[in-house]
């Protein structure tokens, strides 16, 4: 385990894409201390900002108020990063494997364009969780992101595969232009969820304001929900799938973009409530 404790609050964003298990795995203490981070346009040593203990490990523990720390875990392929405190934008961006866990809030672009691996944020996240970067055709391609609290705009924008679960509510445009994968909104979302989606599934346990380009397609009758619920139960996430409690109303859309995606809205049975 390599332990990094923030000792000086950056005054402008601190870009620290070196903080990945892939970079630190084989480095000794001295080499780690001398790694370059970008404080705005200035190149500084990592130990100007962190007290560092440990070496040669693919398990990192970051501690402190790091809401200005960006690009942690970028393109990581294995190992783990544990973060105690808030963390800034682009955490786990383009990640290919391993585990990131945050006891705090994360910024925008959490797990953007990730290909595999697991990210769990116990607090809230910003916008563009698992999204495609601007201009890029494809967002998250696989993996699992769980945000315990709320999330911002464009969650899962252009995602192709993988699963995103948000415990609190999300803002506008969840699943914008999504091409596949699953977004689970335990706390519902604001407007235009699923806009321009061509495939994929958005599940909401709270009522959503539907766009006029989504068509009612009856009640979902598929073992898919039970399988998904079992997968999520491993992470302690409870997804109702028992018919005696209620059912999922299915809507297909976005008809403005081919309309092969689906929105599943949980509807509590009258008898159950």
């Amino acid at each position, binding site marked *: 385990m390599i332990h990094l404790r923030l000792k000086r609050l950056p005054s402008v964003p601190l870009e620290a894409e070196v903080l990945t298990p892939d970079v630190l795995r084989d480095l000794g203490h001295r080499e780690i201390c001398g790694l370059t981070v970008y404080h705005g346009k200035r190149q500084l040593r990592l130990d100007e900002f962190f007290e560092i203990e440990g070496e040669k490990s693919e398990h990192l523990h970051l501690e402190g108020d790091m809401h200005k720390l960006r690009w942690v875990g970028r393109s990581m392929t294995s190992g783990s990063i544990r973060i105690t405190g808030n963390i800034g934008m682009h955490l786990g961006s383009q990640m290919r494997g391993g585990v990131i866990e945050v006891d705090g809030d994360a910024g925008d672009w959490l797990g953007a364009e990730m290909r595999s691996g697991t990210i769990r944020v116990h607090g809230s996240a910003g916008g563009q969780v698992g999204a495609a970067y601007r*201009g*890029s055709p494809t967002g998250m391609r696989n993996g699992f992101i769980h945000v315990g609290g709320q999330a911002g705009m464009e969650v899962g924008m252009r995602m192709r595969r993988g699963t995103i679960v948000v415990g609190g509510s999300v803002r506008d445009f969840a699943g914008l232009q999504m091409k596949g994968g699953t977004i689970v909104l335990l706390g519902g979302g604001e407007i235009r969820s699923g806009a321009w989606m061509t495939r994929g599934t958005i599940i909401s346990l709270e009522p959503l304001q539907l766009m006029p380009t989504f068509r009612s397609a009856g009640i979902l009758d598929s073992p898919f929900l039970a399988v998904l619920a079992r997968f999520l139960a491993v992470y302690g996430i409870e997804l109702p799938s028992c018919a005696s409690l209620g059912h999922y109303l299915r809507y297909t859309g976005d008809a403005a973009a081919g309309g092969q995606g689906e929105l599943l809205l949980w509807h509590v049975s009258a008898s159950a409530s």
Partner: protein
Amino acid sequence: MLRIKGGRVYDPANGIDGQIKDICIRDGRIVESVESATEIDATGMIVFPGGVDVHTHVAGGAINFARAMTPEDHRRAQAFVRSQSRRSGLGGFAPTTFATGYLYAGMGWTTVNEAAVPVLSARHTHEELSDVPIVDKSCLVLMANNEIVLDLLEEGEYEQAKNVVAWYINAAKAYGVKAVNAGGVAAWKWGHDAKQLSSSIAGYHKLTPADIISQLARIVDELGLPHPLHLHCNNLGAPGNVKTTLETMQLLEGRRAHIAHMQYHAYGGDDWHSMRSESVQLADYFNSHPNLTTDAGAVLFGDTVTITADGPWQYLLYKLTGRKWGNLDVENETGCGIVPYTYKPSNLVNAVQWAVGLELLLLIDDPWRVYLTTDHPNGACFWRYPEIIRLLMSADFRQECMRSLPARIKGRIELPELNREYSLGEIAIISSAGPARALGLTNKGSLGIGCDGDVVIYNRSDDVAQMFGHPRYVIKGGEIIIDDGEIRGAPQGREFLVQPSFDPQTEEYLRPRFEDCYTMSFENYPVEMHRIEQPEIHQCRQNA
């Protein structure tokens, strides 16, 4: 002063094909001999005249729109970090202005011709061209969808049309005239295209694409421009378009013309499923008509961004791919479309396109009439030219590449039957001497006495792509620009332009028409000469 000693020289313009010869440069020009000069020992190396790109898109509204539309490419593109000798920039699909100069020069190209400039964005184009360092530049002004010109042709006012075209060339500070999808872009503004050369164009009663093409070619000839009409034929990219291309070439019999990016105009079949190569038919016709020149517009597999004034085609491409689409309307002059695109070997249509570009280069007998281009960035980015050179120089390598094509390609392409391999001398023709001649740039593409001191020196290597991609030295105007991959200097290049004469009344004819329908004032329309960095005015052989 510079002496390049002992290199193996390929200078086809002067009939030199691999002789050991010294090249001397004084005051930026090639001279017989120099005394006490800086010496480059080129023993065992290969010496070429600097490359000339006859058809590329590197400056102006369209490429700039493409840059803005493809941020996803910027983060993976080659980065140029600012240093003493160079400015910062990015490579990629649509390199930034400074990077464009560095990349062209880094590959040994010293002259580029920006092939599509609307008069209305000529000022923007020249501002960008002056930020493209090292290389010399010229540009062609778009005429075949200019509504004032089209109105005159419709009314049969040929002489006035000629005056107006000459005025436009002067106003745009252009070097020649480009025609893109004659009448098709004007028709696009009515939601149509111009697919038949002999049918009247939407918005006009009797004017046809054939009229526009043949009259523009005549105007360019009569104005005596050094470069013939530069023509992007109608029906670009469409299966079966070889018919249109042949008809177009027949229209041009007895006139000079340059057929741009012929690869995109050489398809048979009725639809995307039956599309096939018709390069044999096209090359046969072309071989027997010495009034024509062409450039390949070759395709390489990979990501790029397509940009063209051919608005209706780009809309179709957007519908086919579902990718991003940008559309520009250039008031009364032309249109423009931008669509990012990925050429895949597994895609039958792309595989045919890849083969057709190479087939044309191999089937056209006379290397002096077919030039190396990719219609940058449409078929591939210009910095991938060395990959095409490798394909042309090795039939074995082509066979190897063909193995990744889909099995259904069989019978649709001619490439497996072609064993021709380009020699170094022929590569020097298609990449330098030929395009320089087609552009009428007598001081380019040649190492003859008095020509510009633009020289590339390669380390001889069996890895052709590596050799052409990384010249040992690049010399521009007698100055060593690239030394072993390092940019040593980035001097400002010149801009070539022509000033054909016209009736002085033309401006008064244009003014009311312009003020009637344009959004800017007439006084701001022509580009002032002082905005051109280092202009060099070339003479017209005016005989009318």
